């Protein structure tokens, strides 16, 4: 055997061995890798309570931007919730392929104003996103939210299959679920629900709106809707809940469709208490918090107060 041939053959053998060994090592890591993908993310973005301000402030004004500002100012202003440099995620309800007038999605004017306020407060980045039921491209378009939020300076993200993180929600019913990254990978989370009727949970307001952070087969959650809502609310604690009650869908929810089902209330209210938000919101549908089972269960679980007046309540009419 010549030296040249010897070197060549040895080289080939080494290369093959390296490929084999390398492949083995790579695949050996797979288990660990998938384990790492289950991210220990937290959904707690709450700010400390401040007794100087009411727990909830409600404003009624047919100028919806003014209503939002009045309500937020009464809560201590945007600066109480957003620090300069924060990454902020805003979660409106963009569930359905419906126009703003049909009252199935959050009012785009309010979303845009919220984006603007966050940027004014010095937020480094404002993301607006939601996991829609219908085709997200259509929902984001027809709801008017994409255009309005982008004009105001937000980054609007359409949910993408690659953008989910497996997260342990540590709930009774909800354990490991895929959650859209911006909802856990952020500094501040602002929940911006709209008040709607729902035939199983009675109402879709703040806590039910959090369904929109989940991927996977969430339609199966209706089998235990109350527990799933409470699990979600226990995991996901938004910085602020801004409830859109400008147009309230009183029938045919959560998708609506008919303008006859919409009641114009021209109201916006802000709170840091999710249970209180739902309790107050339910009143627009002719309910009270203590009649709605998931609100009762949430209050029992210590997530907030059904009596929204207990922590201070201010109305600006």
């Amino acid at each position, binding site marked *: 055997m010549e030296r040249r041939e010897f070197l060549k053959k040895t080289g080939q053998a080494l290369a093959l061995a390296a490929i084999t060994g390398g492949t083995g090592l790579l695949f050996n890591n797979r288990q660990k890798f998938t384990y790492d993908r289950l991210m220990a993310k937290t959904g707690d973005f709450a700010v400390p309570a401040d007794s100087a301000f009411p727990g909830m402030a409600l404003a009624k004004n047919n100028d919806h931007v003014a209503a939002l500002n009045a309500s937020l100012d009464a809560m201590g202003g945007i600066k109480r919730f957003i620090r300069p440099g924060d990454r902020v995620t805003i979660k409106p309800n963009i569930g359905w*392929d419906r126009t703003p007038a049909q009252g199935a999605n959050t009012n785009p004017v309010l979303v845009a104003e919220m984006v603007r306020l966050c940027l004014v407060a010095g937020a480094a980045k404002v993301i607006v996103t939601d996991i829609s039921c219908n085709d997200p*491209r259509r929902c984001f*378009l*027809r709801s008017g939210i994409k*255009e309005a939020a982008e004009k105001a300076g937000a980054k609007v993200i359409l949910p993408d299959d690659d953008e989910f993180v497996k997260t342990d929600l540590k709930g009774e019913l909800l354990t490991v679920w895929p959650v859209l990254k911006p909802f856990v990978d952020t500094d501040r989370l602002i929940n911006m629900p709209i008040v709607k009727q729902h035939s199983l949970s009675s109402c879709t307001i703040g806590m039910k709106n959090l369904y929109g952070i989940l991927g996977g087969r969430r339609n199966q959650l209706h089998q235990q809707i109350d527990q799933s809502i409470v699990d979600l609310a226990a995991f996901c604690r938004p910085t602020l809940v801004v409830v859109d009650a400008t147009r309230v869908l009183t029938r045919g929810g959560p998708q609506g469709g008919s303008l006859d089902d919409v009641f114009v209330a021209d109201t916006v209210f802000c709170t840091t208490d999710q249970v209180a938000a739902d309790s107050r919101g339910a009143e627009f549908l002719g309910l009270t918090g203590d009649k709605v089972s998931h609100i009762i269960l949430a209050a029992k679980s210590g997530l907030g107060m059904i009596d929204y007046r207990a922590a201070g309540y201010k109305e600006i009419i």
Partner: protein
Amino acid sequence: MTIATVRNLRRISQVVFFLTFFWLILKTNFQVNFNPANPDEITLPLPVSIALQFDPLTALGTLLANGTLFKGILWSLVILIPTIFIGRFFCGWVCPLGSLNHWISEFPSERARRKGGRKIESNRYKKYQRIKYYIFFFFITAALFGTLQIGLLDPLPFLARSIGTVVLPTIHTAASGILGWVKSFGLGPLSTAAQFAYDLMAPLFLTFRQAHFHTILTIGFLFVAVMILNRIFTRFWCRGICPLGAMLGIFSRYAIFGLQKNEPACTHCNECLLHCQGADNPDIGAPWHQAECHLCLNCQGLCPTSALKFKFLPEHNLTRTNPAPVQKVDISRRKVIASLAGGVALLPLLRSGDAFAVNANSLLIRPPGSAAEEDFIARCIRCGQCMRVCPNNALHPTLMEAGLEGIWSPILIARIGYCEPTCTLCGQVCPTGAIVELTLKQKVGGADITPNRIGTAFIDKGRCLPWAMAKPCIVCEEWCPTSPKAVYLREETVYDRRGNGIKVKQPHIDPDLCTGCGACEFACPVVDRAAIYITSIGESRSAENQILLQRKGIAQSNIRKG
């Protein structure tokens, strides 16, 4: 202009038309314009099906089958009329499938049988080239009697269907698969590079969501077979199968542009035969077949002694060694008559099956705005544009759901995707009017106008959670998009096996309101076979396929006559 320039022009023309065709299919997709002037009506910005409207065979087939020239189909005259004067320029210069066949045929190969003498021999006119004329006569006669099957082999729908439902989704699946595989190594830079490559190609080639199509292996198999055949016989499809080529061949019968052979100049080097695309015998010593020539001009370009020239009103000398060109299309009368007879027999043969008695397929849900089934079959060319454009991946090619007669025509499979109430894209892209474009108002209905229905929903009470398993669930009602909702709930007390009374809301369907969109079936959490499902009964397009004597909104004027 030298002949070399003209050949280069032809090459440019082939590339441009192919890319345009491909690009139009890529654009047959819901790419949202986020600053729309009128968001209530979402329309595609481009007339993406225009290429199909230039197809003379589609024009002739639909004209014979349903007696109308739909929309822009008159554009096909732009192809047809020049063909009468100069011959099959379309095949050599324009046809995207022809170009694809050309390139795959000519792609360099080391295989001996494609070189030298064998290649020359394979490029001589062969009897099998007559087959395309018999196919043409067969399908055209069938169309005359009302069954439009021409789209199966018409090159433009063939290519549109193959690219839209097979090639692009396959690329998508492969790209996602490779990306996931590379990422699974967990090596940061590698994942980033893979993601970067993916993100580069995604906006161009990939749809927003991966499309999964029903039963596409048949379409894919045929497409691959046609491509592979090129490696055995140059442009086998164009020479032997293509009914559009046959039609254009027939129309080029009186062409005044053609090949003039200068016999004394010829040295019999056979250079012309080596690169003849149409197998039309350009060489001296054989009769030139006008109807087979694709006007690729290779023979003239490659002839070292300039013995071959294309010109208007060429002289055709008949000498002892050089037969005159064949002016007539080379077909035998007997076989043409047999083809015609076959075409006549096709419709009764296809419609003698049981689907035309009482048990038509109840799961055959046609897209919204579809014509009544008979008219639909007389219009649909199976181009797959509706399937490609559907944002919910709801439309799929049938295999046998519509019988053999309707193979690859669109069917809605609600489990995969429902019909978005406010979407009218399938009607916008249909080139032949099989699916009529609805306005938003016509689709969803209003106070004065009934909605378009594609079927009716039914509940399978043996699988429905509140009906069969004493579990709450209202997802179908939640998703029902009509207003008021066609799915309504009644609260009942049901008992589990221990006898505990449980209050659940059981879904019911109001047939007056249901449009059959399938959102309920799509969303039903009973994952495999849904507990609520749609069937075609009650569809607006059919006067017969109705469930109730008087159903609110079934106005006779609203039903299309066949």
